[in-house]
């Protein structure tokens, strides 16, 4: 799983490439650290190349959302494919995030 962090306009963008399974989530958690300093920025998680996400990955996204909300930052999920959106629907997460 490859993650890339970029600043685009005033947003913090993280690109996810590959499979966010249980094995990958420990590493990914570390790479998401800069997103937590998000005061004054919105966060976009670009899921165009995200092939798979398991519950550990979902937890990472959720953890980020919970940290971002009190800071006033929005968390957007960009270009998520239908299959993964289904996973979000199954866990009810689909109601918690904004999809773009």
């Amino acid at each position, binding site marked *: 799983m490859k993650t890339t962090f970029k600043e685009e306009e005033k947003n913090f963008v993280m690109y996810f490439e590959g499979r966010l399974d249980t094995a990958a989530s420990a590493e990914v958690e570390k790479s998401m650290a800069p997103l937590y300093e998000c005061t004054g920025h919105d966060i976009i998680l670009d899921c165009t190349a995200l092939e798979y996400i398991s519950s550990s990955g979902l937890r990472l996204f959720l953890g980020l959302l919970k940290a971002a909300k009190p800071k006033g930052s929005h968390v957007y999920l960009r270009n998520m494919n239908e299959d993964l959106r289904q996973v979000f*629907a199954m866990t*009810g997460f689909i109601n918690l995030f904004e999809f773009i």
Partner: protein
Amino acid sequence: MRLSPHCEALLQEFIDLRPQLIRLDNQIFELLQTTMQQQGIELNSIEHRIKGVESLAGKLERKGEKYHSLSDITDLIGLRIVTFYTDDVDKVAAIVSQLFDIDWSNSVDKRKLHDFNSFGYNSLHYICQLHEGSIPFEIQIRTALQHTWSAIEHDIGYKGAVKLPPQYRRQFSRLAGMLELADDEFSRLRTTMTEYRRQIQTLVKSGNLSEVTLSTDSFRSYLELHPFERLNQRIAAVNQAELFPASLMPFLRVLEHFGMESLGDVQAMVDDLSDTAYQLALSQLAVTDLDILSESVGLQNLCVVYALKHGGGRDDVKMIYDTLYGANESNAILADAMIRQYKAIGQKQ
């Protein structure tokens, strides 16, 4: 340019007075803006300007002898209030006549002049002074459509040396007539909608929900009563979850698909099925430790229970997800899972 000594003197007086005029202009503008805001009148704009020196010079050159003193020139300071609706023009006029002293003999309600009057020139021109006395200033009041029209008309009709020939003047007139009708209609529509919304709110608050037809407006009013809050809180208590705000308006289409016709139908669903909806949510959530839920969780489970209790099957539950999240074959999997859970809590389809 040649000005008589009298006019030269006036011009000079004006130049000396300019700083004072600028202060006065700002004062009037601020007063108007604050008052309109307080009265809750939304305006397109309030424009204001001090007459330019060149412009005054030109005016003096043309008609200078008419003016004995500077206070005979009433548009040294000019403000234009542009409203959205025709009936706001009268409201604004009333306010202006209270804020300032109006020189009624020189003020014109050009709307009352019909002949040859272009739609764009239908406006009120008030010549005013501050209550405590001041140099006179002009306030013009018109609607946004009139304002736009007058700009276009000026551009097409009066720009350049060639005046608008008679055959085009009639077309102009017709267009102006249409715009005037539109202006009136907008006002009327706004009044009707305001009344309608007020009625819905009254009905909803009085509790006569079965008399209120299900619609976007009535549903929105109904949601202000937070009808799903108790159910949401019961569900959230399962995992000490936090409730995340969500818009419930998309559920209106689901309820309409169910054939619900009044708010009474919706409330009946809440009253009759909340316990089962709670059980259904509980059975899914108890084994997770999901501690953050959307405010739609209560209504979502209510809808599933409603569909299944009314003899619905997989397709009916799938419809709920199709409506909320977009049609997708995978929603069938969600529907199947829900049906399994429903049976697991001892309910029969």
